[in-house]
């Protein structure tokens, strides 16, 4: 097989299309949307949905004790938790859709929701 041309028009085209595809893929799949609502699940049931655009503190009394969820400036966090590990508290504030904080000992989980439901590994 002989290749004659030094300037490979087709190659440039392939590279150009791939670049467009990569940019498109980054924009589509790595799109993080700021959530507007937080869903609080408590003891296996939905406790309620709360807007993120308010300042609010919620107290949930579970088996282990009192969990305090704080909503402030469009973000949400576990302010205090009775559990041993404190993983939920240490993860800090969340505000993107699909982000989740879970406190298994006290059976509390919070998830940020938006217009569309983001993918997450927990639903799998």
């Amino acid at each position, binding site marked *: 097989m*002989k290749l004659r*041309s030094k300037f490979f028009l087709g*190659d440039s085209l*392939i590279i150009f299309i*791939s670049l467009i595809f990569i940019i498109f893929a980054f924009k589509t*799949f790595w799109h993080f949307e700021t959530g507007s609502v937080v869903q609080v699940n408590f003891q296996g049931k939905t406790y309620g949905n709360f807007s993120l655009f308010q300042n609010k503190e919620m107290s949930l009394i579970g088996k282990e004790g009192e969990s305090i969820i704080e909503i402030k400036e469009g973000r949400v966090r576990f302010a205090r938790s009775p559990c041993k590990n404190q993983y939920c508290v240490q993860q800090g504030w969340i505000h993107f859709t699909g982000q989740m904080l879970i406190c298994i000992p006290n059976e509390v989980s919070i998830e940020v929701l938006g217009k569309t439901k983001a993918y997450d590994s927990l*639903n*799998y």
Partner: protein
Amino acid sequence: MTRSIIKIKTTLLDHQIAQLSAIAIGLSLIESVLPSPMPGVKPGIANIITLYAMYRFNFRTAIWVSILRVFATSLILGQFLSPTFMLSLAGSLLSLLTLYFSIKLPSRFFSPMGLSVLSSFAHITGQLLLVRLWLIPHASIYYLIPVYSAAALIFGLINGWITYRLLKHHNSI
């Protein structure tokens, strides 16, 4: 007792396939010990040999080299019939299919560089399809598409360039 000697008649092409496969297997093994930032993000340097075989000889040689490489490497690494092997096979098959069509493109405009990029994209497409359909049937793997496609472009270009230089060195193009 008479000793029976089994002799298989081999052609020159068989020897060439064997040689090229041996190089491809070696490259695959080297690659398998290289650390990877993410599972699946690999340079795929054995693809150089597949491309080289296709340009230097013919498409049939490329199929042989590629498939032999997948089977032999998995046997050596103890991954035969494991998910790793299946992913590798799926990627290679789709990559070969793409090469089968793209080699028909006019060589005036398309060099091994372009074909290498196409084939590495096909490789990652095959793998992601298998992951989506079989291993992790969940939409969350779409998060990985941007990273994998960026890696496919970069490594495809590098491999293509190496193939191009090799072919030029051997006066095949």
